[in-house]
């Protein structure tokens, strides 16, 4: 009896030892890959930080109008932000590669799915970035043109244009990420359609007095502008 119990314990111990022995190499490989990725991330962060400082990236970002990026960045430095982003990205990739060292099909499948999802994430980031650029550009164009035409609600128009473009970019990004599915499309369609309908009704019915006053001011402005641009030439 005691021999049987001893035999069961030793078999169990042997299985545990075998399991640990199977797991340990994978763990060691993961630790090694993780350590290498930390080292590479550290080096990449230093290199990117000095490169971006060398090309005066912080100043350029401010000149391009991305003051929000500067404000959100650590120490208000977009260079540090980009360097930090690269650092964590390399570590994340290192973790994903390290996890593939474990001989577990579930883990491998998880890694594959994450790596397959990465291009969608990058595309979504690109869409949002381009959308941000375009939103700022169109908003500023509308603002300056509306002010030059002496439209009183220039800022409101500009803000509306900016948010419309950002919403469009956001909806496209979410569609790429596969988040929300049909709900996002439907919500965006309702929102966008609602805004367009509201504008049409405002111009057609609700704001006709305001529009006619604005048009009168415009005609008056044109008449006055003609005083100097019709009788006189600016150039």
């Amino acid at each position: 009896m005691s021999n049987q119990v001893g035999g069961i314990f030793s078999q169990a111990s042997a299985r545990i030892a075998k399991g640990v022995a199977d797991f340990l190499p994978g763990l060691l490989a993961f630790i090694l890959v993780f350590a290498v990725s930390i080292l590479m991330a550290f080096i990449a962060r230093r290199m990117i930080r000095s490169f971006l400082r060398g090309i005066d990236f912080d100043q350029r970002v401010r000149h391009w109008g991305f003051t929000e990026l500067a404000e959100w960045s650590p120490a208000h430095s977009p260079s540090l932000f980009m360097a930090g982003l690269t650092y964590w990205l390399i570590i994340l990739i290192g973790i994903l590669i390290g996890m593939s060292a474990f001989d577990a099909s579930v883990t491998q499948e998880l890694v594959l799915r994450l790596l397959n999802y990465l291009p969608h994430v990058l595309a979504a980031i690109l869409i949002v970035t381009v959308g941000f650029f375009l939103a700022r550009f169109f908003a500023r164009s509308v603002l300056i043109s509306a002010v030059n035409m002496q439209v009183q609600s220039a800022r409101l128009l500009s803000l509306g244009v900016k948010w419309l473009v950002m919403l469009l970019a956001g909806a496209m990004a979410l569609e790429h990420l596969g988040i929300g599915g049909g709900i996002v499309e439907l919500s965006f369609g309702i929102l966008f359609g609602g805004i367009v309908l509201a504008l049409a009704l405002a111009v057609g019915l609700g704001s006709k007095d305001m529009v006619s006053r604005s048009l009168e001011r415009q005609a008056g402005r044109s008449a006055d502008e003609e005083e100097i641009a019709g009788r006189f030439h600016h150039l």
Partner: protein
Amino acid sequence: MEALSEETREQLGRIGAADVVLGIPTFNNRETVGRVVETSLKALANHLAPQRAVIVNADGASKDGTPEHLHEVIGEKVPLVQIRYPVYPVRRLSAPLVGVPGRQEAAGALFLLAKQLGARVCAVVDADLDSITEDWIDRLVSPVLDDGVDMVVPCYRRHKFDGMINSGIVSPFLRALYGKRLRQPAGADLSFSARLVDFFAGQESNSNGNEPSFVDPWNTIPVICNGFRIGQSFLGPRVVHPREVSPDLSDTLRQVLTIVFDPLDRTASFWQRVRGSEDVPSFGPPPEVDAGNTEINVKRMIDSFRLGCQDLAGVWNLILPPATLLDLRRMLRLSDTDFCFHDDVWARTVYDFALGYHLRVIGRDHLLKALTPLYWGWVASIIKELQDSDAEAVEQRLERLSRQFEMQKRYLISRWRWPDRFSP
């Protein structure tokens, strides 16, 4: 520039050589070109008879029969060469300031022919002038032939409120930076010496797709910077046939200021060394200003300025330093009666925009159009001041403005050299 056609080469061969080339760029100007040509023919016969003259018509593919009508009017009186110049789609995107769309390409075609003919002077006049007289051609051509001037810019008789962009920005800016007192540097009817024609023709052949072409003969900056002699001729009033499409004010400002601000980078070493300014040779009778009193309501202009202060503050914050913004805020609090845009503030504002253009703080088109409400503010201020002034008072007032631009030049140079120290 397209190569000359066989027909044009044959014509040039038959003509041989010429002393005076009179260039008339056209683009759908059938209604007005006849008068311009008839006046030019009289001028060539009565004032420039000893000179061998050729009229060159550069046409941008007119659809109303302008070249045929011009040919009919000239007949056999004077040798005529007609050439096509390309009007690229980009030139049709906005209405031209003066003259024809693609006027740079038209000038290139004219210079090519003037060079082939060995002309001593090439004069260019607009085809839509209603007020051209015989004296115009003589006053454009004679200074080049007789006085060794390389470029003659026109000086028109204008109302005191005409050409405010010229009076308020272009003339004082160019005077302060490049040291030449040109009353109306942005003129449309010009003449060029053979030396200058060779220079422009050489510039065009050197320019490639990567570099901005320096060939805009209506821009006096390259002429001044390359040591050519520039003069001005008083021509009288300038009346042009009304156009179907004219650029609006913000587009006009954008086009003009692009021409003025673009060369600043390339010519920085020149204008930073220039101190003060000097008169240029003037020809013709003394220039006159039409000081007829005209009541103009400036309230809307002041409102435009106020709207700009209110809604474009975020944009101006990127361009103007705190001191200038503070001055503008002070002006915002003034009533319509007390409203005044001081010369030093206006000069510094223009210089700040020039610097903003150079540093590309925001998109250049946006930057230049954002100047419009400030320009309206300045125009309102100057109109209030000069409403009841005579010609002499107007001249003195504009002279004070130009001097202020010269005095503030140090401010521009400091900000140009150390932008970080003064950055908004």
